[in-house]
C-alpha cells in the first residue's frame, strides 16, 4: 500500500522539484495522489471480481456436492429429483420447479408429481394445468430440451410463442423460465423446469451449472436402472424374459400364505412340458431349440392374456392373475391365482395345449411342439411351494406317459406311482450292472414251407429267480432314463452271438436271420452305425443275416437323418425294417423314401382280420405297398391257422406268432430248429 513516506522519498529524490514553484509542486502531488487512487480502485475492482467469482464457484460446488451427496444416499429417483428442485430453487432464487419424465419411446414428456414451490399459492393453478399437459418432443420449453438435449431459457414465458402453458403461467404470475435435461449417456431421461415471478435475462453460467447437475442426476437414474436390471435379471429367464424359478416360488409362496388366511382364495399350478423338445435340440441344434422356446413362451403368454381379457373385460382393471414362468429346459409353469373353480385350470391347460397345436417354424422347418400339462390345485394340502410344484410335476409326468399332448390333475395316488417308478428305475440300474437281462427268441416262419427262417430276439428281465419281467413293464422307464442304450447294446451283442452259433449248428442255404429291436434312444446315438458294425463283426455273423427293427415313430422325427443312418447300416450289410407298421403316423408316401428291407405288420391288424373286412383291407393295403416297393413283409400275431391261410392268400411269405411258437428261451429255440419245419 502506498503511503506518505514513499511520496516524500520521491519528492526528495528529485532535486529539480525543490526549485519549483510550490504551487506547481502541490498540483503535481495532487495528480499523483489521484493516479494512486485510481490504481487502487482498479485493483479493488479486480479483487472484487475475483472474490465474487470465487464465491460463485464455491456456491456452485456446494450445490453440486449437496446434490451429489443426496443422489448417492437416496434410493428413490423421485426423492432425489425433488431434493434437487428445492436446492436449485434456493440456489438461484427461483420460485417453482417441476420434473417432466420422458415417455416410453422418447417421443413425449409426461408431467409428474415431482414439484417444488417456494410459494404454494402461486404454484397451485399452474401445477394443475401442467399435470394435464403432456408435451410432444419439440413443444414448449421442456419439449425443446427433449428435442435438443440442451438447456433452454425463456426471459418471459408469457410472451413466448412456443409455450402452451403461457396463459396459465401469466395468470399465476410466472415470467422467466428455464429447463435442462437429465441425461443418461446421450439419452434425455427427464427434463427439469423452473419458473420465477420476474423476467430474467438468460444466465449462461447458471445453465452450464444445470447441465452438470443434469448429468449428475442422470447417474442416479442410470444406477437405479442398473439395479432394476439386476433385480429383473435375477428373477427372470434371460432367454424368454419370463419370470424364473425364484420369482415363481416367491409368488407361489405368497399364494400359499394367502390361501392360509383366506379359504375362498384358490389357485392352481400348471406344469407345462414340451413333448419332443430334446429331439429339436439334438437334431436342429441349440439355437433352433432356443427359437422354439421363445416362440412357445410367446404363445403361452398370448393365450393367458386372452384368458385375462375373457375373465376381466375391463382393460387394466387389475394385474394379471397369471404368472407364466420358465423353470429351465422345456419346462414352463403357469400359476393361476383367483381361480373360480379347479376346472378352470383344466380349461386353461387345454387352451395352452391348443395354442401349441399350430406348427412352429424353426430354421425353415415346421416343428410340432406338443406339450403335456400337469395340474395341481390349492385344494390339496400344501405346506410349501416345492410341494405343489412337485405335485404338478408328477401330474405332468403322468400326462406324458399316458400319451402326449394331455392334461392330468394331481391326486395322492400319483405320489405313490412316482415312488414306485423311482424304485423301478433304481432296480433297472441294478439289473444293467448285475446282468439280469436275458433273451427269448420267437421264430419267423416261411408260410409256404413252414420252415424256421430266423428269429426275433426279445429281451426279458430276470428280476429274481422267480420273477421274469416283460418289456412293457420296464422299457419305457429305461428309455426315459437312457438306460435303454446299455440294455440295447447288450441285446444286440447277445443276439448276434446266438445267431452266429445257430447258423453254424443249423446251416441252411439261406442262413438263419436274427431280428433285433432298436429303441428310439438307441437310434439317436451318434455312433450307432459304428457300434453295430463293431458288434456284428466281433460276433462273427454275416451282416446280411442281421435285421434291425425300428418303430415308425423313430423314423419320422428326423427323416433326413433316418434315411442317412439306414443307408449307412445297409451299406454295411445289415437289413433294416419297420416294426409294428401301421400303428404310427407315417404316411405311405413317406415310407417310399425309406430304403427298407422289411415291413412288419402289427399284430393288431392280423388279429383284426377275423372280425371285419376292414382288418383284411388294411393288411392287403400294406401287402400291396410292400410288393410295389419290393420289401419283404413279416406278419406278426399269426395265432390261428385261419390267419396263416389268409396271409398266404394275400401273398405274405413270412409270419410270426403263437400259431407257430411263442417267444422261448435259447434251448427251446434250438429244439425247434432241430425238429424241422412246422406241420
Amino acid at each position, binding site marked *: *500500500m502506498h*503511503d506518505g513516506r514513499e511520496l516524500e522519498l520521491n519528492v526528495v529524490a528529485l532535486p529539480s522539484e525543490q526549485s519549483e514553484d510550490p504551487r506547481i509542486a502541490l498540483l503535481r502531488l*495532487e495528480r499523483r495522489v489521484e493516479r494512486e487512487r485510481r490504481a*487502487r*480502485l482498479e485493483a*479493488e475492482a479486480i*479483487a*472484487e471480481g475475483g*472474490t*465474487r467469482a470465487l*464465491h*460463485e464457484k464455491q456456491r456452485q460446488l456446494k450445490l453440486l456436492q449437496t446434490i451429489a451427496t443426496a443422489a448417492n444416499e437416496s434410493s428413490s429417483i423421485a426423492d432425489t429429483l425433488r431434493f434437487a428442485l428445492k436446492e436449485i430453487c434456493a440456489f438461484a*432464487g427461483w420460485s417453482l420447479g417441476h420434473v417432466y419424465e420422458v415417455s416410453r419411446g422418447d417421443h413425449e414428456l409426461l408431467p409428474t408429481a415431482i414439484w417444488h414451490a417456494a410459494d404454494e399459492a402461486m404454484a397451485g393453478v399452474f401445477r394443475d394445468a401442467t399435470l394435464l399437459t403432456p408435451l410432444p418432443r419439440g413443444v414448449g420449453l421442456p419439449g425443446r430440451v427433449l428435442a435438443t438435449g440442451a438447456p433452454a431459457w425463456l426471459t418471459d414465458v408469457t410472451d413466448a410463442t412456443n409455450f402452451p402453458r403461457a396463459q396459465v403461467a401469466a395468470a399465476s404470475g410466472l415470467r422467466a423460465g428455464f429447463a435442462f435435461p437429465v441425461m443418461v449417456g446421450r439419452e434425455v431421461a427427464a427434463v427439469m423446469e423452473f419458473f420465477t415471478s*420476474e423476467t430474467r435475462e438468460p444466465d449462461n453460467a447458471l445453465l452450464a451449472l444445470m447441465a452438470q447437475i443434469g448429468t449428475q442426476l442422470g447417474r442416479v437414474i442410470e444406477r437405479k436402472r442398473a439395479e432394476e436390471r439386476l433385480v429383473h435379471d435375477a428373477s427372470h429367464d434371460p432367454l424368454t424374459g419370463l419370470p424364473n424359478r425364484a420369482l415363481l416360488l416367491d409368488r407361489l409362496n405368497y399364494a400359499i400364505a394367502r390361501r392360509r388366511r383366506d379359504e375362498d382364495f384358490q389357485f392352481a399350478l400348471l406344469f407345462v412340458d414340451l413333448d419332443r423338445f430334446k429331439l429339436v435340440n439334438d437334431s436342429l441344434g441349440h439355437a433352433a431349440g432356443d427359437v422354439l422356446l421363445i416362440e412357445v413362451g410367446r404363445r403361452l403368454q398370448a393365450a393367458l392374456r386372452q384368458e385375462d381379457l375373457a375373465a376381466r373385460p375391463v382393460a387394466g382393471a387389475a394385474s394379471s392373475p397369471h404368472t407364466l414362468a420358465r423353470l429351465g429346459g422345456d419346462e414352463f409353469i403357469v400359476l393361476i391365482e383367483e381361480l373360480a373353480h379347479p376346472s378352470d385350470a383344466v380349461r386353461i391347460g387345454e387352451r395352452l395345449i391348443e395354442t401349441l397345436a399350430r406348427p412352429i417354424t424353426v430354421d425353415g422347418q415346421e416343428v410340432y411342439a406338443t406339450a403335456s400339462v400337469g395340474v395341481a390345485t390349492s385344494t390339496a394340502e400344501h405346506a410349501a411351494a416345492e410341494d405343489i410344484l412337485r405335485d404338478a410335476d408328477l401330474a405332468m409326468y403322468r400326462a406324458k406317459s399316458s400319451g402326449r399332448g394331455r392334461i392330468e390333475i394331481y391326486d395322492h395316488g400319483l405320489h405313490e406311482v412316482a415312488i414306485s417308478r423311482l424304485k423301478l428305475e433304481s432296480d433297472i440300474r441294478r439289473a444293467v450292472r448285475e446282468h439280469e437281462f436275458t433273451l427269448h427268441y420267437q421264430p419267423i416262419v416261411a408260410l409256404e414251407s413252414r420252415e424256421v427262417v430266423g428269429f426275433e430276439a426279445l429281451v426279458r428281465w430276470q428280476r429274481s429267480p422267480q420273477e421274469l419281467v416283460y418289456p412293457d413293464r420296464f422299457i419305457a422307464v429305461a428309455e426315459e432314463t437312457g438306460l435303454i442304450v446299455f440294455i440295447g447294446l447288450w441285446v444286440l451283442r447277445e443276439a448276434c452271438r446266438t445267431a452266429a452259433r445257430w447258423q453254424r449248428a443249423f446251416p441252411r442255404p439261406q442262413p438263419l436271420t436274427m431280428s433285433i429291436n432298436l429303441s428310439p434312444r438307441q437310434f439317436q446315438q451318434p455312433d450307432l452305425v459304428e457300434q453295430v458294425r463293431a458288434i456284428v463283426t466281433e460276433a462273427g455273423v454275416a451282416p446280411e443275416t442281421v435285421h434291425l427293427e425300428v418303430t415308425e415313430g423313430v423314423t419320422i422325427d428326423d427323416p433326413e437323418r433316418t434315411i442317412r443312418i439306414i443307408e449307412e447300416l445297409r451299406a454295411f450289410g445289415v437289413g433294416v425294417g419297420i416294426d409294428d407298421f401301421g400303428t404310427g403316423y407315417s404316411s405311405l408316401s413317406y415310407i417310399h423314401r425309406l430304403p427298407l428291407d422289411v415291413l412288419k405288420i402289427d399284430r393288431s391288424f392280423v388279429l383284426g382280420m377275423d372280425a371285419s373286412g376292414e382288418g383284411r383291407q388294411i393288411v392287403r393295403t400294406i401287402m400291396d405297398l410292400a410288393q410295389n416297393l419290393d420289401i419283404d413283409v413279416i406278419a406278426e400275431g399269426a395265432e390261428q391257422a385261419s390267419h396263416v391261410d389268409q396271409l398266404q392268400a394275400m401273398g405274405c411269405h413270412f409270419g410270426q406268432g403263437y400259431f407257430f411258437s411263442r417267444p422261448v428261451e435259447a434251448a427251446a429255440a434250438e429244439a425247434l430248429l432241430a425238429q424241422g419245419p412246422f406241420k
Partner: protein
Amino acid sequence: MKGIVFNLLEEVVRRGYGEQVWDDLLDAAGADGSYTALGTYSDAEIVGLVGAASQALRLPPREVLRWFGREAMGLMAERFPGLFEPHRSARPFILSVNSIIHPEVRKLYVGAACPYIDLREEPDGTLTVGYRSMRRMCGLAQGFMEGAAAHYGERIAVEHRQCMEGGDAKCTMAVSWS
C-alpha cells in the same frame, strides 16, 4: 465495517467539501485513513469519522449518516449498475435488498455483516421497513433509501415509528412515495 463504506464516505466528503476536509476528519477522528474496499476495519473508526463530521458540519450524527447514504447511492449506481438496471423504480429496488443486494454484497466482500431488513408492503402503498443492527445506523438505511429514490427520480418520505436510538428493539420506518 468493510472498507468499501470508508471509501464511499471519503468519496462523498471529497466531492462535497474537498480533499482538505477529509484530511481534517481523519485527523480529528484519529483514524488511519488507508482503507481498501475489501479490507475490514474497526466499527469505532466509522463512528469516530461520523462524530468528527457531525462536529465539523454541525449536524447530528444520524443526519450525517443520512446525508452520507443519500450521496453514496449515486456512487454505487456508477459502481454496481447491475443492481439498479433491472428496476424502473425505487420500490422493487428496495424490495430486492435481502434477496439480491445483500447477497451480492456478501459475494464481493467476504465477511460483510449486512443488517437484516424486514419489508412489508402495506395496503395503503407505504412500505414498512424494519432495521435491526448492532451498529444502529438507521440513518444510513434511510439515506440509502432516499438516495435510491433520487436515482429513479422519485421522492419519498421516511417516518421513524420506532428507533433503536430511542431504546426500541429495532427501528421501524414507514416509507411513502409522493
